[in-house]
């Protein structure tokens, strides 16, 4: 069955395309992009007044299954991803049990197959149980389908172990994803060590808790030649270090989340547990610097760090609430509205950072509308406004600090391998 996506503005950073084109999809692949393709016997999808982009890819998704099914499952997370315009997501390994052996990777892939919404790429644990003591079976997990490795939710504290894991990652040709957090510095910190921490009387997390491990990792990546990917960069100092490391030839990439681009520690005032995450929201200088770093390419990608929790877990006193917020369903509209519409980032740059570059970092197909590529694409409605309603999320997690924000750029259709997995779920 052929499908014709007609009349949209097509943006594809991988081919530097930006203009009015029709796209013909055949056998699940992009068959052609041209100015006017005749609709002969094919299903026509009208994209007039909309934009068509390569499907979004999320480098940082917590699907919580197995063990955290009350928060999210592979199925509900997949649905949320499709609603948010994502055609591919990762499955981070901090589940219970931790994804730290090839059997668990295979089981995760089977769950993703069964759910069938979007592509799911498992990320394996670097160390057994992510306990930071022994290397996990990286090579066997890679063979089973793991595309990258991390101990996310924590960093690898032991430098010797981190270095050895980097040597394995380098040999396997996969990225080492680091959650930079020195636990001796972060301690029991609950939010950024700043004015809000002082006012609210809560232990803070300094920027050095993040940058100390970042500095170590840059040194180790340079020495080992490993592809290092820094997760959820939160501060100006981190961005400067990555900029310098890139200039010095270190093979490093970095991601930033929508919340670290748009929110500051102020969002925590009133003990808002939906603004509690790691790394913590920092200051206005940091959001400005991160935005510039994204625009100039120092930061390669936007990732959601989609971290669903139950309402009951997030209801209570601040210190008892778990870290993390959801992001799949709001990421693109938030950044389209607040970075693209405000002229701080071009739409092409946003698509590049949410699709083309994440695919390259992960080494997976996607991020392109080149003929012959899988038809993974997203159609965006840029004109209709959406008032974010966390209760309407398809994710089980409703823990979002963006509830009530008015946004544009809502995904209207998500297609994975030629299959429509979401259509008008938001705007009817």
């Amino acid at each position: 069955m052929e499908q014709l996506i007609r009349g949209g503005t097509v943006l594809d950073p991988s081919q530097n395309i930006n203009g009015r084109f029709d796209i013909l999809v055949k056998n699940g692949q992009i068959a052609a992009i041209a100015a006017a393709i005749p609709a002969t016997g094919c299903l026509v999808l009208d994209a007039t007044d909309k934009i068509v982009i390569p499907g979004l890819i999320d480098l940082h998704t917590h699907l919580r299954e197995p063990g955290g099914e009350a928060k999210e499952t592979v199925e509900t997370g997949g649905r949320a991803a499709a609603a948010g315009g994502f055609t591919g997501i990762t499955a981070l390994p901090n589940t219970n049990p931790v994804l730290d052996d090839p059997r668990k990777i295979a089981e995760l892939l089977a769950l993703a197959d069964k759910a069938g919404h979007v592509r799911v790429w498992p990320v394996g644990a670097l160390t057994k149980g992510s306990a930071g003591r022994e290397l996990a079976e990286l090579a066997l997990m890679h063979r089973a389908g793991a595309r990258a490795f991390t101990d996310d939710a924590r960093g690898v504290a032991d430098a010797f172990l981190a270095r050895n894991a980097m040597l394995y990652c380098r040999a396997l040709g996969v990225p080492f994803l680091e959650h930079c957090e020195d636990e001796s510095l972060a301690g029991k910190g609950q939010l950024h060590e700043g004015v809000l921490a002082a006012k609210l009387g809560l232990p803070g997390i300094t920027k050095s808790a993040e940058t100390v491990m970042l500095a170590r990792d840059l040194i180790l990546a340079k020495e080992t030649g490993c592809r290092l990917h820094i997760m959820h960069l939160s501060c100006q100092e981190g961005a400067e270090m990555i900029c310098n490391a890139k200039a010095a030839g270190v093979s490093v990439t970095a991601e930033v989340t929508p919340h670290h681009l748009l929110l500051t520690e102020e969002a925590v005032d009133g003990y808002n547990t939906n603004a509690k995450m790691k790394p913590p929201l920092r200051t206005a200088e940091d959001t400005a610097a991160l935005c510039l770093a994204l625009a100039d390419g120092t930061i390669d990608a936007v990732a959601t760090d989609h971290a669903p929790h139950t309402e009951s877990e997030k209801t209570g006193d601040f210190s008892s609430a778990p870290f993390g917020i959801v992001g799949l369903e709001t990421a693109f509209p938030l950044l389209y509205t607040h970075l693209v519409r405000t002229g701080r980032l071009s739409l092409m740059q946003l698509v590049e950072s949410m699709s083309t570059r994440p695919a390259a970092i992960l080494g997976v197909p996607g991020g392109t509308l080149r003929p012959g590529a899988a038809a993974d694409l997203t159609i965006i409605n840029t004109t209709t406004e959406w008032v974010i309603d966390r209760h309407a999320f398809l994710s089980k997690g409703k823990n979002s600090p963006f509830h009530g924000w008015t946004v544009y750029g809502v995904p209207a259709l998500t297609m994975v391998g030629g299959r429509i997995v979401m259509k008008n779920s938001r705007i009817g």
Partner: protein
Amino acid sequence: MKGRSFLSTANLSSTELGELLSLAQDYCGINNNHKLLPLDLLRGKMIAPLFFEASTRTKVSFERAARNLGAELIDLQIGASSLIKGESVLETAKTLQAMAIDALVVRHASSGLPLFLAENLHIPVINAGDGWHEHPTQALLDLLTIFQEFGSFAGLNVLFMGDIRHSRVARSNLFAMQTMGISVRMAGPPTLVPPEMKALGAEIVADIDQAVAAADVVYLLRIQWERQQSGFVSSLSEYSQLYGMGEERLALMKDHAILLHPGPANVGVELSAAAYAWPRSRIEVQVNNGVAARMAVLHRLLAED
């Protein structure tokens, strides 16, 4: 303020603070004349103290204040367990609310917990100390003590000394004192004075002797033994020598200056026995004023018009 919760001094206006202080001053007289007690202002009201952290003086002071006004107390044997989290505290609180309890007095180790309760209840919640965050009735009794001494606030210079980082007393006082026109300075070990206190309005001073000599009030904070184990200070002995109030430093104080401490004091650590017993120490006056200050708060929140 009737029917509202009392959680923080940060949102109290100078008028509200002034009214509370004037009421507290009135109660000081009545309070020390047992023949007049109990009053029947809060007769029929039920107040439940929920203390999840050990406390003697604050708990007894609140109980005394409630009884003085004719209210009754529900004594819950909850034990001091800071492990009980917000959600289960709320469950207990809702049960009490359903039994027509009129107000809760809450102390808990988790900053912000009383606010969380207040947001989910319709009866007033009084913060009797939450983590490192605030202890608003303590600030009220401190202001009362200072007012009794100086007769006004504007232009006074108060120096807080010690563990600022972990001090809810310092925070509540900082907010309230600024509102009343007092200049607040802070001094202590570099690990225990967050530089962000400057953004909140305090002046952070390095020369302690000079600051002591310039202060109208020197407010010593309690240092806890655990701060040594967790790496904030090297020893209580070093702390005492550098940041404590000993005889030599005491001699630097202005003639009219007074010494305060929220209690319980570690005599020999943050102040010497001589400093505690110093004629211008007002530490025991503070304790006495605590009852009157809490009576004023209960009055404002709970009395029928």
